């Protein structure tokens, strides 16, 4: 599969072929501009490849009509470096918002949200606003929001990029726990510490090509 952005001199991803099994935990590593984040965008159907196919959960995303995209996204959870929480909503409301805008009732939210906040270790902090929480806690809210809908896949784009090493480890433990529930976790990072500690499948990308695909790998 190849993806070239308009105006780019070379493809962001060049003839890349990767298969990730259900329930796997995969790291994409590589230097900035290597094409790691393009993988996330392709999986989210934010961009489409110029050549080749992207198949997610057995569905061909490449040929998916754009009006089907919202429904498709409900099976994928997303976590980003910058958390992307709504500043004027509490932790509870941030997570509940994700449920309500896809048509779940407030009753469902009342049942599910405290459960998932408990799972990410934020029991008792439901009614704090993002600015009243530490970076690690904010990322936990983001993880809770991504996971509350029980997605099949969790995409994490440098989730520890803004966090200190200890907090990063805690977030990784959380992602690991989520992975153990059967959720596939795809994480883009250049945090070598974390990759070395986790000892999971590592796919290294350089200049748009896969240079390494190693089970139980290290950063390099």
């Amino acid at each position, binding site marked *: 599969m190849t993806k070239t952005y308009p105006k780019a001199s070379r493809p962001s991803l060049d003839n890349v072929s990767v298969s990730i099994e259900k329930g796997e935990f995969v790291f994409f590593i590589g230097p900035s501009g290597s094409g790691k984040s393009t993988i996330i965008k392709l999986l989210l159907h934010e961009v489409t490849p110029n050549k080749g196919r992207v198949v997610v959960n057995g569905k061909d995303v490449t040929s998916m009509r754009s009006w089907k995209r*919202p429904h498709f996204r409900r099976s994928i959870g*997303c976590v980003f470096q910058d958390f*992307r929480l*709504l500043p004027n909503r509490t932790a509870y409301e941030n997570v509940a*918002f994700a449920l*309500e805008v896809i048509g779940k*009732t*407030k009753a469902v939210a009342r049942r599910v949200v405290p459960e998932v906040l408990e799972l990410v270790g934020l029991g008792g902090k439901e009614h704090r606003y993002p600015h009243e929480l530490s970076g690690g806690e904010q990322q936990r809210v983001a993880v809770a*929001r991504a996971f509350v809908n029980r997605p099949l896949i969790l995409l994490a784009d440098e989730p520890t990029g803004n966090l200190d090493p200890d907090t990063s480890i805690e977030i990784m433990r959380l992602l690991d726990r989520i992975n153990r529930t059967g959720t596939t976790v795809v994480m883009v990072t250049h945090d070598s510490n974390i990759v070395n500690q986790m000892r999971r499948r590592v796919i290294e990308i350089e200049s748009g090509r896969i240079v390494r695909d190693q089970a139980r790998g290290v950063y390099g």
Partner: protein
Amino acid sequence: MRMKYVLSEVLVGLWRNVTMTVAMIITMAVSLFMLGGSGLLYQKVGDMKDLYYENVQVSIFLKTDVQEQQRTDLETKLNADPLVKDVTYVNKDEAYKRFQQMYADAPDLVNAVKPDQLPESFRLTLNDPQQYKQIYDQYKTAEGIDTIVDQSKLLDKVFGVLTGIQNGALALAIVMAAAALLLVANTIQVAAYSKRREVAVMKLVGASNWFIQAPFVLEAVVAGLIGSILGLLALIGVKTLAAGSSMAALEGLITPISWSEIFLTFPLMAAVGGLVSAITAWVTLRFYLRV
């Protein structure tokens, strides 16, 4: 539950940028008022044309020294003319009676004029008032005729003015509508910008497109509907004011615009206001939100 969310978002959205909302509503109201006004005028002009041209007459005034023979010849000719529907002969006495009626307010004038001084005339109703010219050409050289007067000449002038007013109102409506359109587009852009975080999260978690767009589109539609209500109120105000002022004198000339006609234009104004706003908002979102 979701309806409640959408509606509260609409209210918050309208209130967040209230100066812009007011500007949008006022422009919309003026535009729709002009549109409704020109629509009513269009209807009226049509009604009046039917009414007046139906009754329009061509008067052929005869010379005071007209010969008996000339008059009968003319009458036979007119009666046989396929363009003429009806011919009425008005002799000097009848002409004097009409004159007395017309100038009842000025007895001095009436006293000064003798029946003898007034010309005899034929009053013609034409099958088609537009064919006046042919009648004129045909009879202008006939013996014993002084002048031929066509009332529709005057009507043409009156209707020319009314059509001008109507076109002016319509042109102004279109210009104001363009301004309203730009204001709607701008308001929606501002609203989309101030809610960009929410929109980003909604897209991320897979909220449907209509759910993301609905609050914005409805915001514009609500403004459009409020604008159309204000436009209706303006029309009502104009009618009320006109009825109590110098315009009342024109009531005899211009067929009055009834309340029901004013209220019947409201659906048109509301539909135009709502639809134009909705489409503008939706198109703006396509460019600005990329959902």
